[in-house]
């Protein structure tokens, strides 16, 4: 069971969330608040697992609320999903390990995927109560999530959702299950950030997520290609072939 609090100064915004969250199973809204002070009291009192937090609130902003709550070292912060009309706080929200960042107006699908992420994290920390997201960060030098703006939305993309990455001159195209995003970034820099246990450079201009690799194929012309589970074929250079063969034989 997940206990959640909704903090937003607009009654219709709270109403929308309550309405859409009604369909979630194993989910209960334990309180609503409209100001910063109310939110702090409510969260301290109810100790929810999840907090839906608007950034612009009367009194203080959403980040001040988090600051006030974390002033007490014994208090375990809830997971946070930001809901806001402004995209400019996205990086800050990302840095304090927020679960997601929903730009208003959002659809029910977008909300559902955010709640799903929160559920995973809450269950994971329930299974291993000693660790939390922030502490895990220090363990691995590799990126687990990437934040960026694409098509007017803020995405906190988990690298495990990336199928493959292709170079496009000064940009990279990150492909997920259903869409692709163009980012101004270099392959080398991105490769450094990604866990080599998970991602493999198979070509000067492509990196694949090994999780989605189905097979490595020899083409008629003697070239090699990586076949992804979804049927996508990605060209592979000879020089990279031994690396993936080694991985396949594990």
């Amino acid at each position, binding site marked *: 069971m997940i206990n959640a609090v909704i903090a937003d100064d607009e009654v219709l915004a709270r109403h929308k969330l309550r309405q859409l969250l009604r369909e979630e199973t194993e989910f209960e809204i334990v309180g609503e608040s409209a100001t910063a002070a109310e939110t702090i009291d409510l969260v301290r009192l109810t100790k929810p697992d999840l907090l839906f937090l608007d950034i612009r609130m009367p009194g203080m902003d959403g980040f001040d609320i988090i600051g006030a709550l974390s002033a007490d070292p014994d208090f375990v912060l809830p997971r946070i999903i930001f809901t806001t009309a402004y*995209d400019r706080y996205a990086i800050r929200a990302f840095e304090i390990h927020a679960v997601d960042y929903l730009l208003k*107006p959002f*659809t029910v699908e977008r909300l559902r995927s955010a709640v799903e992420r929160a559920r995973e994290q809450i269950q994971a920390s329930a299974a291993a109560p000693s660790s939390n*997201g922030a502490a895990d*960060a220090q363990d691995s030098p590799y990126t*687990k999530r*990437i*934040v*960026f703006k694409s098509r007017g939305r803020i995405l906190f993309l988990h690298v495990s959702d990336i199928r493959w990455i292709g170079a496009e*001159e000064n940009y990279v195209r990150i492909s997920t299950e259903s869409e692709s995003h163009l980012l101004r970034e270099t392959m080398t820099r991105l490769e450094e950030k990604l866990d080599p246990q998970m991602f493999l450079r198979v070509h000067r201009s492509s990196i694949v997520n090994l999780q989605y690799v189905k097979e490595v194929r020899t083409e008629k012309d003697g070239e090699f290609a990586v076949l992804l589970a979804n049927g996508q074929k990605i060209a592979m250079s000879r020089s990279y072939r031994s690396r993936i063969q080694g991985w396949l034989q594990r």
Partner: protein
Amino acid sequence: MHPAIFVGGFVFLGALFGLQNWISEHSWGYKIHLMPLLRAWTVQYFIWGVICWLVWFWLGRSIQKAGLRWILTRIIPLSALVSLGEEMIWALFFPNVPIGRPMSYWHRVLFELDAEIIDNFLIFWLVILLFRGVDYYQRYREKEGAAAQLSVQLAQAQIRALRMQLNPHFLFNTMNSISSMMRIDVPAADLMLEQLSSLLRITLERGEVQLIALSDEMEFMEMYLALQDRRFSGRVRQEIHVDPALHDALVPAMLLQPIVENAYSHGLSRLDRDGRLSVEVGRDRGRLKVIILNSGIGLNPAPRKDAQGTGVGLANVKNRLRLHYGTQQSFSIYEAGANNVQVTITFPLQFSANPTPTLTGYGV
């Protein structure tokens, strides 16, 4: 004007006259040495150069602005004074001229003045004319610069107005679609509202910037296409291809959306199924080339009166292209095969000097 250039110009002129003098003497059969002749001429013009520069230095602005009264009361007496002064100085340099006829200093001055007075006035007044000519030229250049600046400002204001014309047009059409979708399919209306908000957010952020990176323009268009795809419930196959080397190329903001909107409202919207829209951006000999092709009913049928925004979008695009690129751009619309309509746009390829980095962060 630098005095060295000014005086140097005079000396050069003097040397030319000296040479001409020597050549003409020769052609008449007189045997005369070049050097003394050259010396006499260049010294004369050197003196003129110095005097004129001093006149320019002290009186230049007044001469340029002088009215008739000032010319009559000041410049005419000055011309006489300068003519006399020049000969007085020259006579100091050449005590032996005229050769073979020893005379007192004042006699020599009068002798020279007698021979040169017309030339002197001519030189002086030509210089006065030159001063005034310089002033006219400068004022003309200033005026021309101001006119050019004005026309640039005008063009920018026009482009701004044209950009502003597009947003409401597009905004209200989409809101109308959402309003009708609300009654039929709530989740679809919800999604469209989210998509429209994203488009608006981008538009507001962009502000009045007129040239943007192609990648931004394509992102905007893809969002618009996603919205249209919802409206036409997948009846249209959308294909997009962009040369990766052109992601940072500069294009006028909101260039493609009106054309795509037009393709939908005049062609694709009249098909029940198997519609096709393709957008291709490539490079063509130093130019950027956009080809937008849609299936539909061709160009011939008279435009439907009720079609949304008939002609406004395309005219807007054409006008903005003309204002941005003058004659360096091209826009054409024609039928390409059975009932397909193709729009082709080309304009000079430019790249942004410092492309704005995208907001990106890495972490857990």
